[in-house]
């Protein structure tokens, strides 16, 4: 699994870690049952505070993407596989839009219309 953080991006580091895990899950790199790296190891490798990583993991737990269990670490739940189906649909949608000559801005506007925040 690939985790990227850019301190200069203005987005909180823990949000970036959580987003990386989400992206890995939706790509299918992370499967249900896979274990995330130990928070200490990830903090060490990314050169960030361990509490930053733990906060990202807690955020993912609140979303239902991982289970946090003492002694077992963070384990990816079945919810992760739901994301990969969406990715496939998005790819198909983008391919359709491209062949129909619809620019990205129009496609995003159409999605916003269908799925208001």
């Amino acid at each position, binding site marked *: 699994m690939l985790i*990227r953080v*850019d301190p200069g991006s203005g987005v909180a580091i823990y949000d970036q870690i959580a987003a990386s895990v989400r*992206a890995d899950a939706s790509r299918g790199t992370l499967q249900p049952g896979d274990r995330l790296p130990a928070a200490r190891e990830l903090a060490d*490798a*990314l*050169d960030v505070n361990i509490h930053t990583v733990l906060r990202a993991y807690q955020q993912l737990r609140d979303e239902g993407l991982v289970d946090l269990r003492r002694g077992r670490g963070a384990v990816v739940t079945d919810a992760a596989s739901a994301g990969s189906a969406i990715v496939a649909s998005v790819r198909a949608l983008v391919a359709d839009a491209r062949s129909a000559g619809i620019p990205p801005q129009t496609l995003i506007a159409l999605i916003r219309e269908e799925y208001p925040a």
Partner: protein
Amino acid sequence: MTTPATASVTRPARSRLPLSLWLVTVALPLVAVAVAVVLQLAWLPQLPEPVATHWGGTAAPDGLGPAWSVLALTAALGGGLVVLFGVILGTARGAAPTAMHKFLAVTSLASALFVAVLTTVTLAVQLGLADAHDARLEGWMIGSAVGAAVLPAVIAWFVLPRAVVPGEQTLPTTPLELAPGERGVWIGTARLRGGVLAVLVVALALVLVATVLATVASDGAVWPILLAPVVVLVVAVLAGLAWRVRVDATGLLVRTLPFGWPRMRIPVGEVASVTAVQVEPLAEFGGWGWRLSPVGGFGLVARRGDALLVTRHDGRRFTVTVDDAATAASLLAAYAASATQIGERAP
């Protein structure tokens, strides 16, 4: 968050090995074994019954058996080895012939010749004898069998086509695009599975049972000799069953599970090039776990398929099989490229 732009790694097609390689691996060894069996059959009327089948440290035999057992040994062992090497080469994939393919081919020839010549020599020294106990097998006779096996193998090595180096065809990985100040970490786990794992565990169990039996049978006399090699073997196998691969700004770190040791560390400054490759465990590394091979260099191999190949500035290569190796390679390539730039700017 973008998907890294890496070329997908496809599994290479089954190798088309040159005909000369098959001649050396299968045809010549089978001819040698067949000639030995026919010769031994023809000698049957002139041989004592039983014949000498085993020699200890001296020229005189210390074991007797029926003559057919020597013929059966020649056919089964000689033929079996040829089949084994043939099957290994038959499953080869990718560029061919590599040095490992050639090595397997000449080893097939050498082992078949050794079996054929040695069994024939042991019967030849008994021709016309009434009692097999009178047979004498001198050291130079065994030496000539070794020579008859090794010499043709060496000649075959040079007659066979030049070895190709796998990886020549693979292109360097496109480095992951990292914004200035952006950091990336890639972590993956690999473990031996299925049949390979079962075979290793059974083999290890057999070694342990044999060690215990040998110790009991010798009233404990052999354990001081056996202890060190058995411990080394057990640790070497257990330390090559699972591992975690980590790529970060400092380079590549591979730690075997569960203890984290032994480990392999390649600092980013030593990385000359990185690629994601397809690995064939038997053809390129001769097996699984920690491997050192003339073809693949140093490697940690769990299965065929995706692997990360790192070449250092001094030319040494390290290969580790792990899923999604293409992403790991692109991240390490990005860090290696920036380390080189910093190195060039430094006085």
